[in-house]
């Protein structure tokens, strides 16, 4: 009888039916993660908990592996998943979704440096997240700490109508070469590479090494900018030389890192980024030392080292989807897909979230997130969407905390919109001021003073409510908010930027933002100028007032960013000629009512208790 029971077991079942990811694509992304690092981390946590590893030593190890301490609570970590070049596959996104659901808060967060962060993970579970990441080739190794951070690359690289060549393989080869490389495991401080696709797109002037691709006499190369960066004191990077051929990219990078490693300030925590070194010894001296260093590197670089880099570059090139089609030199305008245009949700989305690629007939689609946040279920829908509609079957994270899906055919766009909008992912406004950037702020960061994250979301939803995305005057403008002066929200490269602080008004502490004007990105990027301080709960009013003055004062078809730039340089016409005029007009707006009559104005967003500026020791930024 037992036999019969056991041998008549039901016919085998097709378990794939239950799997959401059947018909998975071949994994096209490089493998960055190592499974053994997960186990190693788990053991270190045990030793730390048993007091066999001191707190400082453990902290250094934890950061090296990409787990950052959470705000005022050492039980929890933020895991920063590196996304080299911003390039990520559906399978990887699905894994992030399930890891967030299991071990984090069920949402993931796209950072301004193209990472994806999981917050409030129990320290003891961090190794499990690492294990899962390694399964799909991802890693958070060297995402924090004094290392080479995520290598950024313009999300348009490969599809940008104005690019001389696709820089993605270079970005990935550099990332691969320096990941776990002994020469950069203990730098004076973190170190950042940013690649652009063209002079317009990319954050090349605010990185330690910023690279703009260019071709000279048929040779690929870069304009290399060094020593830029945002922070308590920010600098714009310097151009190393007119042309750096791609064959010298590796030696230039190694030389820069070696020089910084040798001369960088290891004493003063506040001045140990490379930009301070450049500023202290002067650009010309730094440049001279660097060019000499590069000769030395080139003379001594070993053949295996060189070959391993070339190998990475070639793999990257092969992995890189080149969906051939005729390139068009001029910018393409979108065909009208829905003839009864106007302001239907679809046309609104089409106007601000869909961009024509250099490959004719193909489009790139932005997914507008709220300050970079996306739920696990949305990530899964998004992953399906990529599989179904993108020919390259990958997506890119963007520094505006959004996603970009590329290689979509025109006739698929309505379906893409339908799928996205049915799941809260179809908001318009990606390339306008609506897509507000906000770092994580007091939601999870030790350094934060204000809730910049929530403020960014509040502004975005207000703008959507006011249909700001419909107004072409706000295209190419941006609002970026940091919760402290450290610039993870990149407030200094926004049309209107804000960074959080605290002040006393009367007898009450108040969350307050310093407002900056006229920052910009790209090869000609400039840093914004501080204008005035605005209490947190008055930021929206002030911004809307600026819009009002802009409409009244601008000349011709001037866009907001152009007008702001003019004002900040004292070239305004009419009532507002310069920053001082603007300040005078805004001062009445920022006046707070008495605490006793309106206590809410003295509190920060997302909290019903009185404001207190609480911070703890920082561990790393971005």
């Amino acid at each position, binding site marked *: 009888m*037992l036999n019969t029971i056991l041998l008549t077991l039901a016919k085998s079942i097709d378990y794939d039916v239950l799997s959401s990811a059947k018909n998975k694509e071949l994994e096209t992304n490089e493998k960055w993660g190592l499974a053994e690092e997960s186990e190693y981390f788990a053991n270190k946590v045990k030793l730390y908990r048993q007091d066999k590893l001191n707190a400082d030593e453990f902290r250094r190890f934890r950061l090296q592996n990409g787990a950052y301490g959470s705000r005022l609570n050492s039980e929890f970590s933020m895991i920063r998943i590196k996304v080299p070049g911003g390039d990520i596959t559906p399978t990887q996104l699905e894994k992030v979704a399930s890891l967030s659901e299991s071990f984090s808060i069920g949402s993931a967060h796209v950072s301004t440096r193209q990472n994806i962060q999981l917050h409030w993970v*129990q320290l003891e579970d961090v190794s*499990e997240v690492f294990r899962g990441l390694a399964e799909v080739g991802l890693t958070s190794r060297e995402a924090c700490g004094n290392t080479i951070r995520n290598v950024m690359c313009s999300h348009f690289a490969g599809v940008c109508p104005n690019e001389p060549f696709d820089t993605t393989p270079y970005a990935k080869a550099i990332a691969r070469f320096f990941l776990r490389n002994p020469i950069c495991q203990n730098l004076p401080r973190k170190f950042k590479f940013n690649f652009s696709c063209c002079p317009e797109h990319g954050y090349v002037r605010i990185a330690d090494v910023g690279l703009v691709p260019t071709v000279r006499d048929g040779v690929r190369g870069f304009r290399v900018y060094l020593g830029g960066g945002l922070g308590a004191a920010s600098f714009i990077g310097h151009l190393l030389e007119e042309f750096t051929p791609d064959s010298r990219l590796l030696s230039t990078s190694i030389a820069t890192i070696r020089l910084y490693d040798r001369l960088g300030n290891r004493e003063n925590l506040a001045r140990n980024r490379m930009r301070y070194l450049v500023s202290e010894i002067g650009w010309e001296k730094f440049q001279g030392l660097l060019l000499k260093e590069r000769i030395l590197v080139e003379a001594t670089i070993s053949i295996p080292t060189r070959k391993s880099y070339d190998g990475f570059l070639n793999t990257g090139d092969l992995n890189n989807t080149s969906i051939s089609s005729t390139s068009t030199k001029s910018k393409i305008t979108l065909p009208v897909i829905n003839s009864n245009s106007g302001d239907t949700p679809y046309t609104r989305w089409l106007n601000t979230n869909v961009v024509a690629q250099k490959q004719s007939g193909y489009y790139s689609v932005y997914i507008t997130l709220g300050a970079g946040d996306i739920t696990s279920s949305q990530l899964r829908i998004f992953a399906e969407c990529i599989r179904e509609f993108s020919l390259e079957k990958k997506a890119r994270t963007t520094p505006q905390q959004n996603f970009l899906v590329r290689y979509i055919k025109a006739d698929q766009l309505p379906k893409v919109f339908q799928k996205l909008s049915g799941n809260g992912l179809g908001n318009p406004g990606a390339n306008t001021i609506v897509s507000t950037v906000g770092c994580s702020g*007091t939601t999870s960061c030790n350094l934060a003073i204000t809730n910049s*994250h929530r403020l960014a979301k509040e502004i975005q939803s207000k703008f959507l409510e006011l249909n700001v995305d419909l107004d072409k005057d706000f295209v190419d403008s941006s609002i970026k908010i940091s919760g402290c002066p450290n610039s993870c929200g990149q407030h200094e490269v926004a049309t209107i930027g804000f960074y959080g602080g605290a002040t006393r008004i009367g007898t009450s502490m108040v969350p307050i933002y310093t407002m900056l004007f006229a920052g910009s990105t790209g090869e000609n990027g400039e840093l914004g100028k501080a204008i005035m301080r605005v209490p947190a709960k008055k930021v929206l009013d002030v911004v809307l007032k600026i819009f009002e003055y802009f409409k009244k004062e601008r000349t011709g078809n001037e866009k907001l960013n152009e007008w702001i730039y003019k004002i900040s340089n004292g070239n305004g016409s009419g009532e507002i000629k310069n920053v001082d005029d603007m300040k005078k007009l805004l001062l009445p707006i920022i006046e707070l009512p008495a605490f006793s009559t309106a206590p809410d104005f003295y509190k920060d967003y997302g909290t019903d208790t009185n404001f207190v500026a609480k911070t703890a020791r920082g561990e790393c930024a971005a």
Partner: protein
Amino acid sequence: MRCLSKSIKRKKNDVKAKVKAKVKAKAKIVTKRVKAKANPPSTPSLNFVCDIDTLRTLIKKNRVRVVDVRKRDEYLKGHIKTAASLPLAELLSNDDPESIINILNNLGISDDTWVVIYDDTFGALASRVAWSFKFVGHRNVALLEVTYDNWKKLGLEIERKSNKYSKVSHSIDIDYSIFADAEYIENAQNDKNKIIIDSRERLNFLTEHIPNSKNIPYTMLRSENSILRNPSELKRFMENRGIDLNNEIITYCGSVGTLSGLAFFALKTAGISNVKLYPKSFKEWKSLGKPKTEFKDANYWDLSAE
């Protein structure tokens, strides 16, 4: 294996071993878990989690009472073949031991009936019912490894007719070793060998929790296709957390012990022998005005994209 029953005693042990090996191989193919240790044939047992194949076989052989704990109207739209309906709300409306025994009797479950319970809520509702059955002394009760939704997706046997079974008389033997109340929690708070586990999601835990409790969200426990991960994985999670198999663990959640019921079964399958459920959970704890730990130094709710 656990599928041994009194009526199928084999004389030759070697034959039995062969069969076992075959079953094991089969179980592997369909990624099943190995459950409770083999019991002596005289005390058959079906512990913690029942895999799909085992349940189908048991249904075919009419050796199991399947209990559907979804809402009645869901049950009427379709349920696993032979299943009887017991909406969770019905059990919760009156969950003193005598009432639970009454429920068992009405479902035709006697002391040695094997019971397999399922829901459509990732096993949490089923767990709460299964725990209650264990609490009043029913030994052979297990959760179905998948939800009803997955069972249906797999195209397995369902039916619409309402199943009624003739009333029986179940004995009562309350197992206080798996039960905790507020007073018990209070005493456990400062005992390092006793670990209090909060099964709610992370943000709820951060907002407020029982002092000295640790958070293992129920979302950590399931895998893509099953209500619980495999035991080795769960065991590793506990090891990571520094939890020893010999520790006593008390689980609680928000209000009625469903999420923590799932945690109860997860910890059992991970091999922890002493697990207790605080069925009245945090809702009662708060209503009694007991102390809470709150974390107000961060605006973590604003990170959620919900």
